[in-house]
């Protein structure tokens, strides 16, 4: 069996002020999966979301499993214009949250794109999400923002790092 080192840092961004969106663009198609690591939170109540390739159409959906500290539940939204990667796992006006997003087989041009994510925050809760972008295009741009029925800023100090994993 072949073996080769992978899990390569592609780009990183640390917010120096409260910011509406962060974009990773011109993403090479040379990997198999992408891993997006977010450490930090939102400036007020809100979930992180992603959009791909500047698509603002109603082509996103997600299913979430969450725990609030007192209850477990599940929810979903369909035909959305953005894809939530948090649900209770966000940092609300603090930096005490982690979100790890796995964007699977992002560069193939045959399948719609599926991501799985986990997020946690000691103040709000924990979640696991699966999300779908109904497009067969290779993902070359990722926009990250926050939303709670309207745009929410992401908190200063939040870090965003994108990694690529290449299969043999």
């Amino acid at each position: 069996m072949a073996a080769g080192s992978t899990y390569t840092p592609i780009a990183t961004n640390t917010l120096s002020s409260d910011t509406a969106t962060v974009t990773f663009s011109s993403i090479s198609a040379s990997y198999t999966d992408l891993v997006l690591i977010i450490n930090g939170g939102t400036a007020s109540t809100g979930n992180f979301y992603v959009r791909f390739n500047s698509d603002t159409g109603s082509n996103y959906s997600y299913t979430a499993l969450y725990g609030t500290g007192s209850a477990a539940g599940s929810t979903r939204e369909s035909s959305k214009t953005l894809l939530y990667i948090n649900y209770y796992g966000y940092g609300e006006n603090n930096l005490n949250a982690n979100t790890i997003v796995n964007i699977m087989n992002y560069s193939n041009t045959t399948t719609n794109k599926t991501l799985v994510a986990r997020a946690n925050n000691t103040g709000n809760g924990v979640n696991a999400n699966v999300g779908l972008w109904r497009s067969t295009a290779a993902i070359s741009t990722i926009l990250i923002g926050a939303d709670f029925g309207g745009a929410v800023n992401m908190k200063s100090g939040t870090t965003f790092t994108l990694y690529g994993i290449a299969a043999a």
Partner: protein
Amino acid sequence: MLNIVSSILDIATPVSASSYESIATSTVGSGGVASITFSSIAATYTHLQIRGIGRSNRATPADMDSLFIQFNSDTAANYSDHALRGDGATASATSDVSYSQMEMYRIANVYAANVFGAQIVDILDYANTNKYKTIRSLGGVDNNGSGMVALNSGNWRNTAAVTSILLKPAVGTLFNQYTSFALYGIKG
């Protein structure tokens, strides 16, 4: 990088930057395949990770399939598993005991065009010959109105080093074209 791989596996000790290696990949061609096997796995890593997208020929409308995993060609009732699942409306849990495989929820089926489920499976301390093997996965499928996300765990009651891994659909008889799973090794 150092802490990222560690955090994914919930490991306290950081690993080196070159410790995550691609071992093998299997992508299903036209016609599908009944199963995918990674064999002759070297014992040179500490942990293994399987990452991939999956879809089976299960025909039941508006439903999904799951991923079955077996080690070392063991088809006996030496496995168990647990899952915490969210179907978009409720959270639920399920388990299997003395099972002939470990079930990881979910992958997609033929119901939704071009939709594939995702699975990331961690196989911890797979080469250790002193303890049973424990795995976990994050997986799911979203079909824009249906789907499921799950946290899964599994156990193989055998102390042998894992040298081969078989993946197959739980209900469907074939993985569909473009299903693709890759095996990675993580050094300690």
